[in-house]
């Protein structure tokens, strides 16, 4: 296959890409000799167009507005959007918010900065904006570190509504390389002496998803340890990474987000890792991960789940634009679409599939989700809530079979009573009832099954902290479950919300695990930033069986539907197909 020569070609193109992108870096390095310390963290603002690649540090300093309010500012550059925190109630907000942005040679260079007036629970209003050509900004010779821009009225670009001060500098590539090495070194520098022993070095190589043999690690370690003192310093590591990555890449996956790295491009690898390490460390004052500035300015609290629009089903899903999740119907053997309001999909993606989750979840959202769910529980237990039943049935008319329901609609005095409706005997036939060695589905649901936890992580659960131990909690000795088979049953709003026993046996114990009420929608489950199964409120029960050994049954609450009730007790002998409990509205 001509492996040898293609490798050579790859190496050449890799080198040429590296040179192209960071040629300034090389020039400067050459002029400084052996990369001696520049003494300055940030490169002078004056740049040529072809040098426009690397990491830029943009700081939104402050603004002067014409009235007092609580203000936030957003910066959008290409597909990157981030926002500051909300200021105090003032006409001179001060943010001093920094964000590292990726600047590419031929990428976007006009940043749009929007300033919103905001109140925590109402929609934010765009008050003013400006557009800054970062290329122009960075290439302009200026005596000051910052510049002031007029903020224009969005409805009339001639009207000036305020002023904003900002600064922008390109991080010195040598400093980027050094700080990158410093950061990756800190991952495994267990004794925090700023140097890597062979053991630490070896762990670092493994953290990058590199399966090099032990003798190869030793060889690399010796190559890195230039002065032969038995440890690898920051400078030595930086040098090794720069050289080695060109020859035989050491970094195959990001130890922070797990993403596979483009091994052929050291610059992009370095930028990816630098940005990734910064997120959530407090180094970044602005929160990123939004798609648009409008999204970034929104108050998201009520859009965190598919239940967010519950009270407006009659107008919401029917009239709005929709997205869908594809599901395979086992009975009809057909693919079916599960409709979901595109606004909800968008908001869930922005929340659960972005690093904002890390920041936002820490500022009261968990509490808010709990309080919304409790409030909804009280509402759905009220007599007035029974008015919602016909609307709900009508909305899901193709998916709720009233003929299966044990009682007529008039029987239900509250919505929650309807929600936990019982079915007529025989409405759900139990497969091979006489054969206990056959396990059955535990709920009307969308099912995912995996032979091992590794498979579940590969195909479905992307939360980085997921583990069986985390799911079952510390009270359950889960050694026997490690690497066991996992089956996930996801209930949707319209489903019959009682869960049944999949196997026959004796209930050994119940363990309540308190937690959050994030959505369990696939959007959240598929997010690497969200760990719904190990952070949500749940109850774990252990069933001891003759044919399957012990089976852990975990009932996980979600936004709005956070109340979990069991109908069996510890010590009960249970048969597969028996009702085991139900989920209802509440916290």
């Amino acid at each position: 296959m001509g492996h040898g020569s293609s490798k050579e070609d790859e190496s050449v193109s890799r080198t040429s890409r590296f040179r192209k992108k960071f040629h300034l870096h090389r020039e400067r390095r050459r002029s400084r000799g052996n990369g001696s310390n520049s003494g300055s963290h940030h490169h002078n603002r004056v740049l040529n167009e072809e040098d426009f690649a690397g990491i830029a540090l943009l700081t939104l300093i402050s603004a002067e507005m014409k009235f007092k309010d609580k203000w936030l500012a957003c910066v959008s550059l290409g597909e990157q959007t981030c926002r500051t925190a909300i200021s105090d109630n003032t006409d001179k907000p001060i943010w001093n918010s920094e964000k590292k942005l990726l600047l590419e040679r031929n990428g976007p260079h006009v940043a749009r900065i929007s300033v919103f007036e905001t109140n925590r629970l109402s929609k934010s209003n765009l008050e003013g904006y400006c557009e800054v050509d970062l290329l122009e900004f960075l290439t302009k010779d200026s005596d000051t570190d910052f510049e002031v821009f007029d903020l224009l009225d969005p409805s009339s670009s001639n009207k000036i509504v305020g002023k904003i001060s900002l600064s922008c500098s390109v991080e010195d590539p040598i400093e980027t390389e050094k700080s990158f090495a410093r950061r990756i070194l800190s991952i495994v520098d267990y004794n925090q002496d700023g140097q890597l022993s062979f053991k630490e070095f070896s762990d670092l190589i493994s953290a990058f998803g590199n399966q090099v043999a032990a003798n190869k690690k030793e060889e690399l370690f010796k190559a890195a340890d230039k002065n032969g003192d038995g440890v690898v310093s920051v400078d030595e590591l930086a040098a090794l990474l720069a050289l080695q990555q060109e020859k035989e890449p050491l970094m195959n996956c990001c130890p922070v987000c797990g993403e596979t790295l483009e091994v052929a491009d050291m610059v992009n690898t370095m930028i990816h890792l630098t940005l990734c390490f910064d997120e959530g460390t407090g180094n970044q004052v602005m929160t990123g991960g939004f798609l648009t500035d409008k999204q970034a300015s929104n108050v998201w609290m009520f859009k965190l789940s598919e239940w967010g629009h519950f009270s407006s089903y009659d107008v919401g899903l029917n009239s709005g634009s929709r997205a869908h999740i594809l599901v395979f119907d086992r009975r009809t053997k057909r693919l079916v679409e599960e409709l979901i309001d595109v606004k909800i999909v968008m908001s869930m993606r922005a929340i659960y599939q972005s690093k904002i989750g890390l920041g936002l979840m820490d500022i009261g959202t968990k509490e808010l989700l709990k309080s919304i769910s409790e409030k909804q529980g009280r509402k759905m237990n009220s007599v007035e809530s029974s008015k919602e039943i016909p609307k709900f049935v009508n909305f899901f008319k193709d998916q709720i079979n009233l003929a299966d329901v044990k009682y007529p609609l008039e029987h239900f005095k509250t919505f929650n009573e309807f929600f936990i409706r019982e079915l007529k005997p025989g409405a759900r036939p139990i497969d091979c009832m006489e054969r206990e060695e056959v396990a059955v589905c535990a709920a009307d649901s969308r099912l995912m099954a995996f032979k091992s936890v590794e498979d579940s992580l590969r195909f479905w659960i992307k939360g980085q902290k997921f583990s069986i131990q985390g799911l079952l909690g510390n009270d359950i000795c889960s050694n026997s479950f490690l690497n066991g088979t996992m089956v996930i049953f996801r209930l949707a709003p319209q489903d019959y919300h009682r869960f049944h026993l999949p196997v026959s046996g004796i209930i050994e114990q119940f363990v309540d695990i308190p937690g959050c009420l994030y959505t369990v929608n696939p959007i959240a489950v598929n997010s690497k930033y969200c760990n719904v199964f190990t952070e949500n409120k749940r109850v774990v029960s252990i069933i001891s069986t003759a044919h399957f050994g012990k089976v852990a049954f975990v009932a996980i609450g979600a936004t709005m539907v956070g109340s979990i009730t069991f109908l069996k007790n510890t010590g009960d002998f249970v048969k597969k197909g028996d009702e085991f409990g139900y989920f209802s509205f509440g916290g």
Partner: protein
Amino acid sequence: STVICVFEKDAIQIDKDLLQNSARALETLVSVGMRMGVSKKEILQTEL
């Protein structure tokens, strides 16, 4: 809401169609009582 069942390693053989769909990141719509899998112990005994 979600229910997760965890079986001990090698305790159950999940039905093939469910595993195949899941390996394509495709959820399968099921109802209570539908067959999910068989005890591996049982399969081994039958084979013996």
